[in-house]
């Protein structure tokens, strides 16, 4: 928190037009956008890209769910179906979930939150976006040229020897995009270490910074292992080197170890930033400091560290030794504890707060509920004997979608709404936004809850045709998916609408704590006219609200005029 002079009102009324000079209107040419090194513009470029990929991945899922309404292969050929679920997984994981919050919200907010002018390496940041886009184009090419059907997990020897689809192109695309992840994480770590404003000690940092930092550690250390896994599969396909070929003494399970060594921590890359977003939203809409700040912060690091130790829980039925299974199962339970700590702390933060239910808060509360459910099913799958039954069934599909969609995507949408005014200088229509949040919540549960039941019943995943007795639950799930799809279209529409017709936002419509709110909406290119100096603790809502009350003594609590 910056020191605010006692003699000046802490806020100004919402202006009639956006601030004269801000990062958006600082040059309109295509060149000024495509050659920008401004972290905020790069964040917007990422926003466009990830939204694009989200729609393609969502389209693939829609066709899959539509086909699954009947037990037979009634909509597409099986080859196509296999390519569609692979496309859905590859695109959603590598081109949406992993970059979404770090590259959009992280890029935009990290310098602002720590009072810096930009990230440590702005040109590297732009390069990261180009690398991401190049990788994405490769993958689009692979899709258009006929697709890939290995599943996003590329298990050998199917991917390395048997599949005759575009494995190489897809692997190359993901390999390239991985560098974007690595460089972004590197940028964040250096920035957070070296460029915090004076007075901004570690324990005054917003929790979003803590979780971004933890995420960046995983991005930096884990992604290279994915790179080598895909590289070796590519070499086996291209040069027939047989590293995973049993006929040469190779071991297909080695691929699984290498792949999951990254891909398990990767799921924490996908969810940790969302947790950071929730940790920003809840205090703001409760008007109080989060309960257990230090514990929430440290739990992010604990998750990052433990996440590297549990990959073998994807290999319980693969034939890895029982003793390895024991170790990985035990460690998997350990990694659940820090997440539980967060959930309890978030819930406790509501206690004695002054709670309002604006859209970001709806998403945040939805996150807490759905992440809890998804995380609890993690206890099921970490139990060796239960996992034997549910591995590779729809139970697993439901488990990770509860966390990825019910968790990460809702956190992402909550963050987009929370910081929309900061990024664009406009307010979105609150009524439509709340309706959408509820629609998404309902649609999501209807889509994925039946899948738990389906999975325990024994319906395997990646199945095009299935026994008739599974149809009722599949139809329920697909019905839910249609609601979910509609729900996602609403924000796309009204957020775009708001760019032109939304109300102009003040610098801090939410009266939130944090340095990013101390500059205009949208911020100027250099972020701050002068580097702020931080004296107060984080989330000092008591002080903020006291100052607001001093200005408007008649209003009960704090009014938020919005939408």
């Amino acid at each position, binding site marked *: 928190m910056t020191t605010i002079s006692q003699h000046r009102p802490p806020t100004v009324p919402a202006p009639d037009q956006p601030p004269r000079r801000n990062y958006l209107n600082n040059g309109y040419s295509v060149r000024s956008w495509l050659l920008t090194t401004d972290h905020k513009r790069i964040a917007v470029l990422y926003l466009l890209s990830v939204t694009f990929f989200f729609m393609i991945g969502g389209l693939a899922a829609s066709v899959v769910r539509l086909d699954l309404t009947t037990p037979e292969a009634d909509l597409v050929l099986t080859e196509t179906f296999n390519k569609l679920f692979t496309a859905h997984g590859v695109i959603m994981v590598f081109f949406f979930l992993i970059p979404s919050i770090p590259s959009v919200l992280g890029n935009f907010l990290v310098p602002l939150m720590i009072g810096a002018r930009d990230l440590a390496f702005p040109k590297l940041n732009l390069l990261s976006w180009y690398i991401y886009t190049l990788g994405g184009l490769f993958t689009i090419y692979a899709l258009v040229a006929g697709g890939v059907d290995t599943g996003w997990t590329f298990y050998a020897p199917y991917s390395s020897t048997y599949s005759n689809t575009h494995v190489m192109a897809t692997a190359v695309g993901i390999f390239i995009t991985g560098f974007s992840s690595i460089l972004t994480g590197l940028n964040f770590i250096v920035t957070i270490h070296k460029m915090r404003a004076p007075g901004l000690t570690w324990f005054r940092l917003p929790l979003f910074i803590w979780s971004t930092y933890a995420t960046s550690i995983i991005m930096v250390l884990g992604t290279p292992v994915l790179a080598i896994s895909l590289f070796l599969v590519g070499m086996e396909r291209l040069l027939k080197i047989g590293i995973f070929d049993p006929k040469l003494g190779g071991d*297909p399970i080695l691929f699984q170890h290498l792949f999951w060594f990254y891909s398990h921590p990767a799921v924490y890359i996908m969810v940790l930033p969302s947790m950071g977003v929730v940790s920003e939203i809840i205090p703001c809409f409760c008007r109080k400091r989060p309960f257990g700040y230090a514990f929430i912060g440290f739990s992010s690091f604990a998750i990052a560290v433990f996440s590297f130790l549990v990959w073998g829980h994807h290999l319980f039925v693969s034939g890895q030794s029982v003793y390895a299974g024991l170790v990985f199962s035990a460690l998997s339970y350990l990694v659940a504890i820090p997440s539980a700590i967060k959930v309890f702390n978030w819930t406790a933060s509501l206690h004695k707060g002054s*709670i309002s239910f604006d859209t970001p808060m709806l998403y945040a509360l939805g996150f807490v509920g759905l992440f809890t459910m998804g995380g609890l099913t993690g206890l099921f799958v970490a139990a060796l004997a239960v996992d034997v039954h549910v591995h590779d069934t729809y139970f697993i599909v439901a488990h990770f979608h509860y966390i990825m969609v019910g968790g990460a995507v809702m956190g992402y949408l909550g963050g987009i709404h929370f910081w929309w005014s900061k990024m664009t200088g406009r307010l979105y229509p609150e009524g439509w936004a709340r309706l959408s949040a509820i629609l998404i919540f309902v649609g999501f549960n209807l889509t994925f809850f039946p899948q738990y039941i389906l999975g325990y019943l*024994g319906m395997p995943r990646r199945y095009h045709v299935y026994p008739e007795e599974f149809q009722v639950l599949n139809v329920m799930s697909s019905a839910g998916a249609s609601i979910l799809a509609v729900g996602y279209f609403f924000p796309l529409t009204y957020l775009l609408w708001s760019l032109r017709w939304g109300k102009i936002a003040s610098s801090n419509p939410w009266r939130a704590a944090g340095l990013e709110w101390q500059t205009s909406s949208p911020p100027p290119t250099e972020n701050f006219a002068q580097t702020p100096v931080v004296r107060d603790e984080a989330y000092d809502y008591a002080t903020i609200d006291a100052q607001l009350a001093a200005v408007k003594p008649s209003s009960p609590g704090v009014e938020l005029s919005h939408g």
Partner: protein
Amino acid sequence: MIDDGFRLFPEQASTHAPRVDLLYFFLLGVAVFFTVLIAALIVYFSIKYRRGNTQVDRTVSHVESFRTELVWMVVPLILCVMIFTWGADLYFSGYRPPAGALEIRVVAKQWMWKFQHPDGKREINTLHVPLGGAVKLTMISEDVIHSMFVPAFRIKRDVLPGNYANCWFEATRTGEFHLFCAEYCGTNHSRMTGRVIVLEPAEYQAWLAGGNANEPPAEAGKRLFEELRCVTCHVAGGATGRCPPLENLYDHPVRLVDGQTVKADDGYLRESIVRPAAKVVAGFQPIMPSFDGQVSEEQLIDLIAYIKSLAKPAAAPASEAGDRP
């Protein structure tokens, strides 16, 4: 059972199933408890502390207590240790098949399951087994990784190329149960399904005896042994001195040139045929040619069955079968 119509919960058809389900229901209880707890707290706090409610006391009297944090760290941890132990214990008990289990050989390939009963009878995509008594599946893939999954038995095991994988079950109900491939294996992965048909023991014997008489695997193996000229070196009793005798070899320890001792199980025998130089027996040269690519997995199963059937030589002249395995 297949064709039973819509269900919400799978039936239990093995000795293992109820035990897994018990753990599952416990986990369900834990999950429901915590979900309801968190949801209820969120709803309760949201209503009680909503912005417009000015009657409620919001003075924060508590100091953020390390003790609270400790409680909600330790309690879940204890719960997790419990669940882990239970799951691990159950996993162990389901892992190793009991002795004397009925041994079925399974070969998976894109996109079918091939089963072979001990007497040689073969089936494709359907597996007849007797009720009661352990059944052990020894499985291998001819191509990519598959996975044998029978939901009603709560068993699953990935079937790998190049290495045998085992799982076992003991059926407790007669009927027909789904068998699925549970590891994505290419285009017709979702059609690589089948049925396990559990019959009363007497019916199973009748089924086994009926139909075409199949060549017992050991006899088929013996025929192959001669066709492939194994007998050139592997003369009965090891009389050529060029190679270790195969009598009484199965399941016994073998000493290798590098000093290791391994057990001559199915995997060892299979490897010795396709990659003989990998484990050379102490006292012998690595001169055995590899049969990799010349024998199919099913032929390997037959050869192994033959080797298993070779009894200890009645009067082996100078060879002490004990220390020259």
